[in-house]
């Protein structure tokens, strides 16, 4: 149990060392991984596994996924990326996909925040509201 706690602590310290201006520095992460592989410290594997998990979680925070009902132009995608990067105060890595189930509008996901401006979402909300409003005869 103690060794697991130690490896977690070491991994967290390594992650902090890999940060530059509040974001992960890819070069530092690469060098850290190489060093861990080459030097093989005590519980190196556990540290590396924990480090990978933390890097994955940290990277996910800066991943922007744009879903749209129809394909978006490169300019529109760049515009969205710039807007959200300014909001997040850091560089974001953007991916895009087409989801016809949205019917219209966009669904953006940055880290664990989701902004849903799709037609499907508005219809769902409308559905839930109409379910909650009691019929006039029942009032």
């Amino acid at each position, binding site marked *: 149990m103690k060794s697991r706690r130690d490896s977690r602590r070491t991994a967290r310290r390594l992650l902090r060392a890999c940060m530059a201006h509040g974001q992960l520095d890819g070069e530092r992460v690469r060098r850290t991984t190489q060093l861990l592989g080459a030097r093989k410290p005590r519980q190196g594997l556990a540290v590396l596994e924990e480090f990978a998990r933390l890097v994955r979680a940290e990277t996910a925070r800066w991943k922007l996924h744009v879903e749209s009902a129809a394909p978006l132009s490169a300019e529109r995608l760049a515009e969205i990326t710039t807007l959200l990067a300014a909001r997040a105060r850091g560089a974001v890595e953007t991916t895009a996909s087409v989801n016809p189930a949205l019917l219209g509008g966009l669904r953006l996901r940055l*880290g*664990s*925040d*989701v*902004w*849903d*401006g799709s037609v499907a979402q*508005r219809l769902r909300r*409308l559905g839930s509201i109409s379910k909650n*409003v009691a019929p006039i005869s029942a009032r």
Partner: protein
Amino acid sequence: MSTLLQEIESQIANLKTSVAKQNVGVVREIGDGVARIEGLSDVMLNEMIEFPGGLYGLALNLEETEVGAIILGDYAHVKEGDEVKTTGRLLQVPVGRPLLGRVVNALGQPLDGKGPVSSKDFYPVEKIAPGIIKRRGVSQPVQTGIMAIDAMIPIGRGQRELIIGDRATGKTTIAVDTIINQARLNRAAETAGDRDARPLYCIYVAVGQKNSSIARTIGVLEAEGAMPWTIIIAASASDTATNQYLAPFAGAAMGEWFMDHGMDALIVYDDLSKHAVAYRQVSLLLKRPSGREAYPGDVFYLHSRLLERAARLSEKAGNGSLTALPIIETQAGDLSAYIPTNVISITDGQIFLETDLFYQGVRPAISVGTSVSRVGSAAQIKAMKQVAGKVKLELAQYREMAAFAQFGSDLDAKTRALLDRGQRTVEVFKQVQYQPQPVEVQVLVLWATTNGYLDDLPVEKVKTFQNGLVEFATTRKAALLEQIRRERVLTDALAADIKACVEEFKAGFKA
């Protein structure tokens, strides 16, 4: 009509906000009703989270990159990679009068097939207990109808009195008797149109019990007509550990509604040993560090925060109360085990039931020496204090002495008298289950006992005498019983009337 229009307009305004912001996470691990979720960076502790398919969970563990949550419902279709959303709401249960007479689960959903619960009020399951300023001392009695308890270990409204004992020693029976007695008192007050009477509403929380046991308890309460004042929350052994963990808190929330609205309520947690086991299971699945007997470190806090919610509120805070009767099952009478010692230290006294006494035929099998009520005597009515003041001490002395008396036959007169009186008092306190006694009857019987009217009777005839006296008083001296109930104190004149009644009965009693 104007409110209707306002409602529609507000809904339109809501819809005009085209973008909905949500905080989401992804299920990484799921099993045994517990999920580990990555993401959910904005989730609050104890916040409800939404799984696909309208299933809800409760965030219990907030870690650096993960959230541990318990799932409330059927988790069979939740899978790794599912998206989970925060809701910004705490777990709530329906509360209020519509729940009376109903059997519900830990989330307040009906289990009795009597249709939906039409409650409009909701209370959070986890709520901070009333503070010092809002509270006042315990001063009103909870009449259990069990003579041994009302005389020796009295319970007051707002008190937390633990019922503890081995399996099959009559713990649930004491709780059920108390509920039945409240129903009788409530019904009597309603019939008499007594406006000063304060009905005591009852909540019975069954945790980890067999469905057959719960059904039997419900059957007894229905047969005795106690259901109109009772709510039953069932989290049986076949329910998930999460539901078993939540049930007492849901019950406390329902009880708090009565307390907050200036009413009195009684809640029975049957039992907290199984509740601790359910919480241990949840904690181990959430990978929380385990401590003694593998229980998590906060198992004391779990029960203390639950039982602290029982209180008697001041006049300013509405004068309501919530009385708690937690039940703990011991193993081979071991009071020093982890959970029993925890709950003993939290509560305001305990009623300890002994297996030996139970099998000797002393039922309720209350061990007088180890049972205590720390605050309830302040709530005892004066007449009861007058007749039962020394009974507990005498009975405890009798139990001690009886053990020694087995080894020798030569006893001095004083010891002999103590043993004789003790034997008769034990007989008097024997009581059939589901037959609670009104307080005025208890006072009459105890007066006869403490004043030596039973001393010359053979021990085996004591019960016959007692039953006869009760019948005689109820049928022929109803006015006297009514006077005891109304005056609540034994004046010289009233004592003389009681004496006359007992002597009149005894004169005609053939042993």
